[in-house]
């Protein structure tokens, strides 16, 4: 207090004293520090994200191409069309694999004997015939012709080529022996081996063979499941939110409901799965593993999120708009339908899309209703057996074949692309329909 008591000149007032300067500097320093903390936090978060994306991309990128071997294959009519009808419906699909084997034996005549030939077959995929059948199997004109085709290499060759299995490892420790390696190197030297785009990954469903496994079935399953989820959760969620926010009296019952909705948002998702198992599957007897049941379970799970975000969006509509409409002689329902709900819609949709993105990545409850089934064809309806993207990731992560490691990461990449697209849509919708008042 002595400073104040002392006679003050214009240059030595309380607010320009040395102490004041000190306080000022301390304030600036504190603000600077706070900024640095913030930037550091963002940097750490970004770094984590980059590391995550980098590792997944590095693991998964290789799944988008596949090592293939070019062979001169003769479509032997005696094998493919044993009945001689020249009708593609009568073709022996299993014989395409034999035809490829024959081509392989012709390519390497030095491989004689049962063991050598078995090793030789180890170069190509055990399901290579499926690819050949897909390419030429429906064309009777191909019978008897000799064509050059790219045949997927076996998983072991594929992994060696991609560097996931070390070819300098001791022979006993790798799935490919020295002789097989020599043959493959010969193929490579002749230009008869190289990478091809792995279109199977996008067009087929799950398989025991990594070279034949694809995501298409899981994507269709996810889309069907989300359609069920959205068509259940959105109307119910909006109706609940509108009623609770705009019409319901504030009493103990509505308080209880509100508390319960908030609690439901925090219930572990597996519990919803158990509920779905008990109610939808066992009580109502709905088909197991179907997008219908999966979608219903996830709809239950998304409801609290949608209700909470919809209520927040409704609350954010200024009361003056409600008063204006009521003052004009609009009923409460008209007020909500004409003014409040349209204004809240961007917020509701944003919340819904984020809930849907969450639902897209949901795994645990779907395992409970059997969506981890091994499904080798895309579901054709809501009642078919299906898998979904995250469950497919889960299944592949568990698979013993080396080839599924990269497929798992690639599936995660596809899942992330869907998530980013959905969140981007949410942002775009908000920007587009946001109205200012």
């Amino acid at each position, binding site marked *: 207090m002595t400073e104040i008591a002392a006679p003050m000149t214009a240059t030595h007032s309380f607010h320009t004293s040395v102490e004041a300067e000190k306080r000022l500097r301390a304030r600036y320093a504190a603000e600077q520090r706070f900024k640095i903390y913030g930037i550091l936090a963002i940097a750490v978060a970004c770094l984590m994200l980059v590391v995550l994306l980098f590792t997944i991309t590095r693991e998964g990128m290789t799944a988008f191409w596949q090592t293939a071997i070019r062979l001169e294959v003769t479509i032997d009519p005696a094998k493919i069309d044993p009945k001689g009808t020249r009708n593609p419906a009568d073709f022996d699909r299993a014989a395409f694999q034999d035809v490829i084997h024959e081509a392989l034996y012709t390519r390497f005549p030095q491989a004689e004997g049962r063991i050598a030939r078995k090793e030789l077959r180890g170069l190509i995929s055990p399901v290579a015939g499926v690819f050949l059948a897909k390419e030429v199997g429906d064309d009777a004109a191909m019978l008897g012709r000799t064509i050059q085709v790219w045949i997927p290499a076996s998983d072991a060759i594929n992994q060696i080529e991609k560097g996931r299995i070390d070819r300098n490892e001791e022979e006993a420790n790798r799935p490919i022996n020295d002789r097989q390696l020599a043959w493959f190197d010969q193929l490579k030297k002749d230009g008869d081996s190289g990478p091809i785009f792995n279109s199977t990954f996008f067009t087929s469903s799950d398989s025991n063979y990594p070279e034949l496994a694809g995501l298409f079935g899981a994507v269709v399953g996810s889309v069907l499941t989300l359609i069920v989820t959205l068509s259940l959760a959105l109307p119910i969620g909006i109706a609940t939110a509108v009623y609770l926010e705009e019409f319901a009296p504030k009493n103990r019952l509505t308080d209880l409901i509100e508390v319960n909705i908030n609690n439901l948002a925090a219930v572990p998702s597996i519990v919803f799965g158990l509920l779905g198992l008990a109610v939808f599957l066992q009580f109502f007897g709905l088909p197991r593993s179907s997008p219908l049941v999966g979608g219903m379970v996830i709809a239950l799970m998304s409801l609290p999120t949608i209700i909470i975000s919809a209520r927040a969006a409704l609350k954010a509509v200024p009361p003056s708009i409600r008063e204006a409409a009521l*003052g004009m*002689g609009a009923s409460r329902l008209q007020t909500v339908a004409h003014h409040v709900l349209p204004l809240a819609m961007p917020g509701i949709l944003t919340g819904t899309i984020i809930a849907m993105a969450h639902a897209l990545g949901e795994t645990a409850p779907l395992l409970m209703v059997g969506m981890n089934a091994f499904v080798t064809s895309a579901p054709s309806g809501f009642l078919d057996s299906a898998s979904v993207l995250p469950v497919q990731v889960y299944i592949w992560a568990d698979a013993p074949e080396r080839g599924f490691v990269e497929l798992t990461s690639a599936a995660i990449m596809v899942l992330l692309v869907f998530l980013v697209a959905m969140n981007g849509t949410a942002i775009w919708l908000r920007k587009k329909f946001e*109205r200012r008042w």
Partner: protein
Amino acid sequence: MTKTSGEAGTKRAKMAGRGVKVFYGEKRALHGIDVDIYQNEVLALIGPSGCGKSTFLRTLNRMNDTIDICRVEGKITLDGQDIYDPKLDVVQLRARVGMVFQKPNPFPKSIYDNIVYGPKLHGLATRKDEFDAIVEQSLKRAGLWTEVKDRLNEPGTGLSGGQQQRLCIARAVAVSPEVILMDEPCSALDPIATAHIEELIDELRANFTIVIVTHNMQQAARVSQRTAFFHLGDLVEVGATEEIFTNPRDERTQGYITGRYG
């Protein structure tokens, strides 16, 4: 501005309140208000903040219904009919007793859509040309037509504050109400916009009965024929505006209009 005497008996009471008490939960906000509102007059409600004048205004078209804890006792009539009669439809009441709020609150829609919302709602018109006519007439009555006639499709929220408030008045006028309630319609506006609205109120008096809450005593003196002074939930005094401002009967009225408290 001409001032009518505003004496009871010579004019018909459009609306009347008898023993109006309003409770917010346990708290009583109005202690029994008796007041008549005459046809084609402007009644100003004045008084210090929190005296209950806005509360009283909002009981006149039952806007208080939207507040859960609010309860109204007593009787309010419109053309002799009790407006708190459970059989009376509140939507219809609000079509007959329109309201303009303190803060301009146009809908975030075009100027045109703002005006036609009410008429559409109450089925006042069906054809496009009828709506066009209502829009033009309402905007003319609100003195906004010349300013906005070329941009009817622009958002109402893009207008200036004063224009927005006149748009709100036009919107209220468009449903042809009998009474217009105004809750401090000029408090968010600058003096020029305020003058505009005051002129407008005087013109609207020819067709409507107007009740206006104001904090501005000059405004009350300028626009109203009769003035009611509220204090702590009581109606202290009501009478011809000239009377109230020049020769108040009650000490509290005198204290307020001379600026001893407010």
